[in-house]
């Protein structure tokens, strides 16, 4: 298993996980990375959690749009905005 798949898999085994994936340093993504992200998103959603993304490089964003990730993931411009949004969601769900 690749490091990204392994990390996301271990982080989404807990019940109701809320994950913010900061992609600031990601300059390239292929189908393997896309599958790892969507698998984590699905596992999190299955237990009322979520995976949100932030700080996406424009070229990586282009790939996300090509495969429709912008329709399923909540995407934020930076980590600060992502943390705020996730906190609001968690408070609303309490």
């Amino acid at each position, binding site marked *: 298993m690749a490091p990204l798949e392994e990390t996301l898999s271990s982080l989404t085994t807990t019940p109701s996980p809320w994950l913010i994936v900061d992609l600031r340093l990601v300059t390239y993504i292929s189908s393997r990375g896309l599958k790892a992200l969507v698998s984590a998103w699905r596992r999190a959603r299955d237990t009322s959690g979520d995976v949100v993304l932030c700080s996406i490089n424009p070229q990586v964003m282009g790939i996300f749009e090509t*495969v429709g990730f912008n329709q399923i993931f909540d995407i934020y411009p930076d980590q600060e905005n992502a943390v705020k949004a996730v906190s609001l969601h968690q408070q609303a769900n309490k």
Partner: protein
Amino acid sequence: MISLQFSIATFFIGLLLLILVATFLARKNYYRLNVPSRHSSIRTVIDHFARLAESSGWTKGEIYKCRLALDEACVNIINHAYAGNPDQRIEIVMDISPHAARFTLIDFGHAYDPDDVPAPTLDKQIDHVQPGGLGLYLMRKMMDEVSYTAGPNRNALVMFKHREK
């Protein structure tokens, strides 16, 4: 006198041919690679492509798209045509000009019918698409033309992209 005129004419025709060949070679970057069917080979392939494309004036965005298509094509060959066997070969021919790029990838493994591979959609669960389906989808999206010829002894994937305007 006639012999002298003939020699001069031959010299100029030769010179003209030489200029034409030099001009052709200067504007085209052609490269043939033969790599083992291992994931570690993909970096070699992509590095070669990036060098050729940069020397032909391709932009980072264009290189990104071709890189992704090449990456997915190699992964599909390694994982599906060769079923993960690292001791097979992939032949790759790259033909890059300032106007377009053509990649030909040849493998000697299992063939498939690309028309039988459905495009992944979110409602069909992208993480459960047919193996290689997402890679093939990305190749088609990144390149202008993708064609696949399955043969009894070898399969050829050809990908073509015009420069973006």
